[in-house]
């Protein structure tokens, strides 16, 4: 499986990364090199192997649904790029 430049642009869009025309050539080569490394795995028969979902095969621990976090909203607002009253500001989405 090998990616072409159009596919690389599409992946960048999905990942919310912009990639300009001068970079696309190099990126396509590098990504294809990495993908060809992964082709190795095709050699292994994994038909009857379970995927490993957790390194310790532990299941997700549940807890009581109670508030455990302190209210740090002011501290988090203070480090945000742009804020309003109790919210983060972004460019207008809906006029």
């Amino acid at each position, binding site marked *: 499986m090998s990616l072409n430049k159009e596919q690389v642009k599409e992946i960048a869009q999905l990942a919310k*990364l*912009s990639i300009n025309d001068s970079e696309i050539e190099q990126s396509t080569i590098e990504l294809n090199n990495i993908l060809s490394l992964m082709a190795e795995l095709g050699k292994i028969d994994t038909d009857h192997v379970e995927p490993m979902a*957790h*390194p310790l095969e*532990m299941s997700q621990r549940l807890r009581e649904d109670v508030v455990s976090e302190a209210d740090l909203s002011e501290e988090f607002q203070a480090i945000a*790029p742009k804020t309003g009253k109790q919210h983060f500001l972004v460019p207008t989405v809906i006029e």
Partner: protein
Amino acid sequence: MHTLSVAELSKSLKNKEFSAVELTQHYLDRINRSDLNAFITVTDELALSQAREADAKLANGSGSVLTGIPFAQKDIFCTKGVKTSAGSKILDPFISPYDATLSHKLNIENMVMLGKTNMDEFAMGSSNENSFYGPVKNPWNKKMVPGGSSGGSAAAVAGRLSPFATGTDTGGSIRQPSSLCGITGIKPTYGRVSRYGMIAYASSLDQAGPMTQTAEDAALILNAIAGFDEKDSTSAPRDVPDYTKSLRDSIKSLKIGIPKEFFLEGLDSSVEKVITESMKEFEAMGAKLQEISLPNSTYAIPTYYIVAPCECSSNLSRLDGVRYGYRCKDPKDLNDLYLRSRSEGFGDEVKRRIMIGTYALSAGYYDAYYLKAQKVRHLISEDFKRAFKKVDIIMGPVSPTTAFELGAIKDPVSMYLADIYTLSANLAGLPGMSIPAGFSNNLPVGLQMIGNYWSEEVLLNAAHQFQTQTDWHSVLPENI
């Protein structure tokens, strides 16, 4: 003072040979004179105020064995009120509003944080050349890389700019720089040390641990940082032993497995020689060596470079220029804000891994990549389970070569090969360690030890016994 280990410093502080303030100032002076670029942020004032508090505790006898000991914190751990960048431009403006559990645990011991260490951006790299803040130099030879991703931490300890440092290991990021800089580093079992407030790269692989001068120091620090944490849903609810207690146990009849797959083509012959010599040392101490096989470990690289990028593409989606970190100038709309903040904020290797992960997880490719890799991961961990039925510990090289020159490896795939022996322990979730085992061309070589789940005591015991018989760990770079 700077050639003393944590255990030695602890005694000196207790005996009032010098104060924590004097010790801290000594290290701060060393850091300020250093040209290794090991630190992103030096926290002079905070360190001195923490040292004064520590002195007060030591004076009234309420301090612990670690009170007043200075340390260097990898810049991946959130530290309240201090910049926490993860080596990235996108987090350059980020002053953490809270402490990671690990930071908190060191604070309650009244330890002294000297600063935050340089690292590969978001812990992605094996040479520390992927840092927004520039590469770190190896104290043994300043033309060489210190390894990565915890390169700043390793260089700081090897250059004696700090008695010890913290690190994180997702695919070898504690062990490989420890090996390349000639220090002792342990990656505990997955879930042993809390990941809360440790900036996530690949959540099913990430684990924190100490980077020290000796195994004894690693045991002292692990005592302080290990343990269950409510705030980390993958933290293991298990009791923590006193890791210093078993250090002096005899290793007579310890069964050591040597995986033949770790000695194939690609291993530098001078590194192999050092590893073979150190095995003989263990044999002389009464340990029993036997060859074992980990057949699927040869697939660790492709497996890791699917699993880790998939997890990172998901984890790093939170960095969008909206709530914290870098935001591009004058975004024209929301999409432009996302695109430019991320593209201007992330470095090349991080972008590559995000793209690989995004592709591997996209519709139609999930089974071929992610699911396949998770199945092979199972096979890799089964290999270890079989091996640990026969042996107590597995040993081999950490890295196929000693430190390489800055700028020497430009191709991403070639750089990935540096992790060939370390990745499988992360994929299986097992504890691993690197200890100084000798030199090749005046550069340090590390011996890797991999243990069964929760067997940090076995690793630390074997490492400590080796360090009572050898002095590789106390050899210093020139001009220290």
